[in-house]
């Protein structure tokens, strides 16, 4: 007798009938709101219509589902719809911004934008877009943000280690200060650096001052994120390390930080991404400059957000196009950083394998130095065979 297998059921499937209810609710609520909104009450405006449509759709969807299926299912589905709407809204907004800037900016990007500065700008020239560029701003932003990150990330990691690994007195005070710092308006950071360094004639405008202001701004974010990342490292790993006879420093250095590595890279790059986009603190520090100034320690320097603001505010059509191109470049920079974060943050099994291969090659060649050339070749061949079963 052949074995009988029951028909597989998928109780959670969203079937044809369910799609029917969804589409019908969407359609009827659209008609209903259209009649009420535009025909009966003579209201106007697309946004209000969308909001009313969405509200009546949810109501209708819940009512119909509870009538046809079940009240609990109805509540469940309405809630799912809300959650999905929220998520799509976020994705949609980001996609819209990126798409818009790309559409407006990418078409205007030319090679000379990356190589020239604004020193040859003359508004009357019809070919002006071939003679100018934002190279000075790219150099400025990379230097300012690079220096800010180079100071902020180590300080943030050390602070996070203090908060999470060392603890003791002062933890609460430090955490409160860091939290309060994250609420600091960015313009205040710029004014602060200006008032203690520029106004007192200790320094002139310089890219380095912008780095200091950006450092103040990204420090709290990187610190808090790093602290959160360190907190999710299981306590058992610290105990295991200490029980092996490791000192507390070795435990943090060799166990806690490597375990939290990918999260810490994300934290750092988020901080850098914040710094790349900051505009307000640059006014009183880097100040802006139409010419290339690669020295961050001396003289006013340009930055991408500053130059973008300058361009957008001019009545020159050509410059507005350049502004969109600059916005696109700025966005690409942030995107590159995020991709970098993902790549660097990956678990490093593959890297470990390659390092191990290299090590085994060098070690073997060391042990048999006498007949090196022939042996190295043989050894490398066998080790490759061994590593790939």
């Amino acid at each position, binding site marked *: 007798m052949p074995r009988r297998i029951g028909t597989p059921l998928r109780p959670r499937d969203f079937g044809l009938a369910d799609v029917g209810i969804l589409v019908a609710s969407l359609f009827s609520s659209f008609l209903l709101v259209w009649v009420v909104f535009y025909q009966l009450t003579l209201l106007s405006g697309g946004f209000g219509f969308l909001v009313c449509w969405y509200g009546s759709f949810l109501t209708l969807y819940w009512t119909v589902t509870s009538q046809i299926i079940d009240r609990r299912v109805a509540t469940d589905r309405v809630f799912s719809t809300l959650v999905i709407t929220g998520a799509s809204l976020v994705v949609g907004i980001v996609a819209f911004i990126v798409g818009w800037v790309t559409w407006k900016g990418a078409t205007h990007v030319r090679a000379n934008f990356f190589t020239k500065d604004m020193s040859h700008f003359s508004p009357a020239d019809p070919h002006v877009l071939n003679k100018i560029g934002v190279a000075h701003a790219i150099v400025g932003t990379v230097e300012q943000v690079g220096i800010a990150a180079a100071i902020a990330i180590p300080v943030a990691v050390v602070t996070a280690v203090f908060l999470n690994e060392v603890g003791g007195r002062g933890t609460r005070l430090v955490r409160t200060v860091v939290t309060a710092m994250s609420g600091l308006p960015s313009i205040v950071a710029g004014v602060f650096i200006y008032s203690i360094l520029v106004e007192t004639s200790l320094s002139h405008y310089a890219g380095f001052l912008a780095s200091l202001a950006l450092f103040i701004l990204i420090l709290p974010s990187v610190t808090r994120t790093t602290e959160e990342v360190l907190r999710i490292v299981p306590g058992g*790993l610290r105990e*295991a390390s200490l*029980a*092996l006879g*490791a000192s507390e420093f070795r435990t943090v250095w060799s*166990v806690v930080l490597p375990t939290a590595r990918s999260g810490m890279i994300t934290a750092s790059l988020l901080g850098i991404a914040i710094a790349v986009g900051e505009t307000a603190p640059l006014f009183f520090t880097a100040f802006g400059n139409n010419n290339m100034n690669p020295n961050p320690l001396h003289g006013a320097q340009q930055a991408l957000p500053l130059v973008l603001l300058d361009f957008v505010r001019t009545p020159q059509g050509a410059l507005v196009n350049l502004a969109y191109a600059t916005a696109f470049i700025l966005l690409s920079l942030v995107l590159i950083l995020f991709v970098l974060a993902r790549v660097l943050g990956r678990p490093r099994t593959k890297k*470990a394998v390659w390092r*191990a291969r290299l090590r085994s090659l060098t070690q073997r060649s060391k042990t048999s130095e006498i007949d090196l050339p022939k042996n190295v070749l043989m050894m490398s061949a066998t080790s490759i065979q061994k590593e790939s079963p």
Partner: protein
Amino acid sequence: MTSDDSLSLTRGAAGLVATDVCAWFGGRLVLENVSLGMPRSTVTALIGPSGCGKSTFLRILNRMHELVPGAQLAGSVELDGTDIYAGRLRATDTRRHIGMVFQKPNPFPAMSIYDNVLAGLKFSRIPVADRDALVEMSLSKAGLWNEAKNRLRELGGALSGGQQQRLCIARALAVGPRVLLMDEPCSALDPTSTARIEQTIAEIADDVTVVIVTHNMQQAQRVSDTCAFFLAAENEPGRIIEAGPTDVIFSNPNDARTMDYVHGRFG
């Protein structure tokens, strides 16, 4: 600046003697006047219901207790006659002599199996003449070599739970401890893995003195030579009710409470 030879695997087992050990968390006394000898190259099981201070006692034996904020202790613990609390030994050195395996397997997730085994030596900056041989020896002793020899470069987390626990044992053995403390090492494992670890314990007992906390009476009976029964009455600190050879504790104990506990009548 530790010399290499003092920490090789051949150093051999050492006895532990705890005398009048008391422990506090905050101001609360949780362990009162516990004295216990754990002779060289034997397996000692600490049994008793939850909350009676077995784990606390175990953590006092390699100075892990003092890591808990607010923890205090009294009494002495002697490793072959040297008091580990007397000040001559640093806590980190003590823990290298007296290793520990925890309830939950905790291999370092960012390290390969190979690096996990060598982690303790790396942390203490102890030079190793032949890393490969030490890794093989430690993994063999922990009964993991055959399963792991072709995956030494994989991350420790890629192993199964039972294998991870044996990796942790190998990691603890690699630094050449003279005593190995095990805090319910099998409570997160299935019976097959448990049997494998019990076999490991029997095999390493010549080289390291083992002290094991377990809630499993059969396990205590199977693996241990001596047994100590801990008990804490309500609102009172934990004490040792009875300690002695395992067969006596399980067949003919002096105290009625021991008899009741080992035969599952309470706890």
